[in-house]
């Protein structure tokens, strides 16, 4: 029962906005000690897992390319492209990206897009430019909201697309776990049931993007379908 103290440390630490790295380390220490491990064992377990998870940090090697392209005006170009495109709105743009992200993730192509690769250099500046066109001008808060929607759309697209693919980690985890209980299933039998939720995710998030569009357009008094009215 005492091992749950580690969870309490995490929740309270995040709520009080301590540095998350310190919170995680404290939680690991508390959990390990209450479970009866010595300090050496806790540090070793943590170090082993950290080393095994290095592949998560590989994605940062794209930053030099993004940095180079941004120095040559990639974000400015992305904005320019959208402001010249008639009928381009934030909602339509993000809904299109959502569909693309879901479709490619469903084919197992989860790493071809992402926050460093596509959201920061392309999607967010494009969404921002479309929003500027719709609303006339953006307040600081609206700018933040459009950027946050760009990141959120990438996440929703990835999460509710990837499980349609047969060989993704979570499908293999389910298959392996069910085998331990003596239930043998093919990956396909599992992944097909990710489709209803994928459709629901597109409808729900798409509806919110449509509402975002309406909010932005109503600011300038234009019709919801963007630049055409002006």
């Amino acid at each position, binding site marked *: 029962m005492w091992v749950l103290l580690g969870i309490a440390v995490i929740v309270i630490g995040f709520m009080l906005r301590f540095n998350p790295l310190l919170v995680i380390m404290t939680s690991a220490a508390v959990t390990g000690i209450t479970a009866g491990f010595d300090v050496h064992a806790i540090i070793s377990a943590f170090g082993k897992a950290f080393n095994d998870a290095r592949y998560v940090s590989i994605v940062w090697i794209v930053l030099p390319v993004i940095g*180079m392209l941004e120095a040559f005006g990639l974000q400015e170009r992305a904005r320019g492209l959208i402001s010249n495109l008639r009928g381009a709105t934030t909602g339509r743009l993000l809904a299109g990206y959502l569909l693309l992200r879901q479709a490619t993730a469903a084919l197992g192509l989860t790493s071809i897009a992402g926050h460093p690769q596509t959201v920061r250099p392309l999607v967010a500046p494009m969404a921002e430019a479309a929003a500027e066109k719709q609303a006339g001008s953006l307040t600081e808060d609206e700018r933040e909201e459009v950027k946050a929607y760009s990141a959120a759309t990438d996440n929703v697209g990835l999460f509710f697309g990837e499980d349609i693919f047969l060989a993704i980690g979570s499908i293999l985890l389910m298959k392996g776990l069910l085998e331990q209980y003596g239930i043998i299933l093919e990956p396909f039998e599992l992944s097909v049931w990710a489709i209803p939720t994928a459709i629901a995710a597109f409808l729900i998030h798409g509806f919110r993007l449509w509402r975002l569009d309406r909010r932005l357009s109503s600011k300038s008094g234009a019709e919801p379908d963007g630049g055409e009215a002006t």
Partner: protein
Amino acid sequence: MITLTWVYILAGVAFAAFALFNLADKSNPRRFGNAAFWGLMAVSMWAGDWLGDFGNGLLVLALVAIAGFGGLGKTKGNEILDVTKQDRASRYGNGLFAIALIIPATALAGTLLFKEFPAMFDVKQVTLISLALGVLIALGVGYAWLRAAPSLPLSQGRRLMDSVGWAAILPQMLASLGAVFALAGVGDVVGGIVQQAIPEESLLGAVIAFGLGMALFTMIMGNAFAAFPVMIAAIGMPLLIKQYNGDPAIICAIGMLAGFCGTLMTPMAANFNLVPAALLELKDENAVVKTQIATAVPLLVVNIALIYFLAFR
């Protein structure tokens, strides 16, 4: 054979360069902290497999000590002027997109192609290997066509890396915390509590407890993979599958997706929720989580309903 080790060497080079650029940057008052932090990341990439478990643990402690006690700063110089960027953007036009798309295009092509050559490539890691290859090709094209100064990608990459800061290692840290939780048996304890909380003789109650449990436990752990075995052991297997004869494929597949709704709502899923806030330089680090809640909650309800109506026909 080309394995992930090669990619780790490349990542180590990038982190080492970020460290050296920081070391030489007098405009950042905490430049030694930044240099040490990214330098340790380079060591982890290059030598992680030789340091031993305890050695890696000490390396993590050093990273946490640097970042946790305010040892990281940001450069003041190094920004490219907006006029210069505008000017260059109109000169190079849409070709800039072509270079940006080299990375996903190579990742896509490599993933499909390299699988056919299991003797040359580690087939389990082809996407990450192709991603690294795409980065190298994009850099090569950038040097050749844009005539970028040799140090520009690394110095600008360093600026972006420093704006992400310590959030860059949060995903790895949380994965490690998950390992300690697993070792301590946290999941079993939570499962036991959940089992006691379920109303008896109510299928709907059990389905709701399963879906909500997946989402809540995912929020605490930061990923659905940790929550899934616990909730299956506590509710999925004994109640939904054995007692109520539910379809295991539907219960598992949609149960996992109920967990993903939790991933959208927690700062613990750092790489999806906190890292982009840092990358997009948002004022509120929880802005992405807050935006996602209104998608995640109705979708969680849909998932619970889907399990209830589809799995027990």
